[in-house]
C-alpha cells in the first residue's frame, strides 16, 4: 500500500509530483499540465509512463513567477520568452 505523503514530508523532499505541486501552489492540475507540456516547468522522468518529478523549490518559484507575469498581463509566448531569458 502506498500512502499519501503528509505536508511535512512533501516540504522536506527535493522532488515532488504534479499532484503535490497542485497542493503546494493552489494551482489547477490542467494549468500545471499545460505549463509542463509547453516546456515551462522542467521535470525528470525515469522512464516513459513513470511519474514526472519536479524539483520542489525551483518549480514552486517558477510557478509563482509565471502567475505574477500572467497577472501583469503577459501572454503565454511572452512568459515563455521571459523564462528562457532568465535561464
Amino acid at each position, binding site marked *: *500500500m*502506498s*500512502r*499519501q505523503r*503528509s*505536508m*511535512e514530508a512533501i516540504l522536506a523532499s527535493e522532488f515532488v*509530483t*504534479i*499532484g*503535490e*505541486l*497542485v*497542493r503546494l501552489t*493552489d*494551482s*489547477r*492540475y*490542467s494549468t*500545471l*499540465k499545460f505549463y509542463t507540456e509547453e516546456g515551462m516547468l522542467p521535470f525528470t522522468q525515469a522512464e516513459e*509512463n*513513470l*511519474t*514526472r518529478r519536479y524539483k520542489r523549490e525551483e518549480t514552486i518559484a517558477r510557478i509563482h513567477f509565471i502567475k505574477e507575469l500572467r497577472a501583469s498581463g503577459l501572454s503565454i509566448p511572452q512568459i515563455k520568452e521571459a523564462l528562457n531569458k532568465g535561464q
Partner: protein
Amino acid sequence: MTDLQLAQSFSMMALNAQRSLEMTTAKKMALRCIAAAVILEVYLDKGFTQSKNQLALKKDVLEQSHTMLYQEIILKSLARRNAKKSWDLKDWLKRASKLSGSKLKSLERAVSDSLKELGLLEEIPHLLGCDLYFHSAGVSIKGYRSDIQEYSRISEGIRAEILEDGPVTDETICMLWLLRESGCMHDLFSRNELDIVSARMYKLYQGSPLAKALYPIRIHRGIELATKQFLRMKKEVVRTQVGSGLNFLFPILERSQAVFIDMEAMFSNPAARLHDVKQRLESKGHTVTVLKEGQIPTIKIDNIVYEAIPHAIYGRVPIHGVRLIPKPLF
C-alpha cells in the same frame, strides 16, 4: 495547509453546497459514504487486525486520545449493535453505510464540527434562498460551503493523481470509490475525463490489492442514486444556444439547480444584470467570482461554476431576471 483525514477530505467534497438543515436524498447518499469513509480511514491507519479476509477492530482504536468524535460515532455504533465484531471489508462498509438516520445526523454534526473547527467548512444561506420565490417569502435555507482553496486543493489533487501516469496513493483509490458510490464523479471530471478515469480504475483493480478489494463493493442504494442521476440527467436533456437543461422548462423539479434571480429593471443590459445578480448573491453571504462577462456570463459562486442565463417568468406581470444553471464540465 492542513493534512486532513480521508473522511474529512471526502466530507469537504460531499457536503459542499448541500442543505444543512434538511436531510435531502443527495445528503443522505453523501452521509452513507462518509460513514464508509470512516471505516476506510481506520483501515488505512491499520486500526483493524486482519486474519484471512476478516477484519476485527483493534481494541485500542477507541481509546486513543486522537480518535475523532465522528470515528467514535461510527465505530461504537457498529460495535454495540453486534456481538460479532469481525467481518470482511465489504461487510464493514455495508454496515456503516446502513446506519440509521439519527446516527447519520450525529455523524454529520460531528464531521461538520471537526471541519468548522479547522475553518474549512461554514454554514451560509443556501443558494436557493436567493431565488425570487424564497427570497421574497423570507424563507431561510442554509447550506454548507467548503473552504474554496482547500476544496480546490483536494479536487485538483485527485484529478492530478488519477489523470496523470504513475502510481496512485491509497487515499486516492479510496476517494475514487467514495466519489463513485456517492454519485459525485461528474462534479470532478468531464465526460472525456471519465473515460480515462474508468480505464485507470480498471487498471488499479488489476494491479492494486486495495482497489481489487474495494472496487467491486457497492454501497449505494439504487433508488437514491437514480434520483440523483435523474436530477442531473434532466439538466442535460435540453441544450439550446442560450443554455442547457430541462430546468428551463420545469425548474420546480430541482429549483436549487435553476435558481431565478429577479432584476430591478425590465430589459436590463448584461452589465446591469450581472450587477444585480452579484448584489443579491453577496447580500446572502456567497463568494462570487465573474469568470466571463457578456450576454451569458459565467460566474463562480462559492465552489461551483454557473451560467447566468437571461430569463423571464410570467405571472400577472412578466418578471425579467436570470436563471443560474450549473455549467457542465465538458
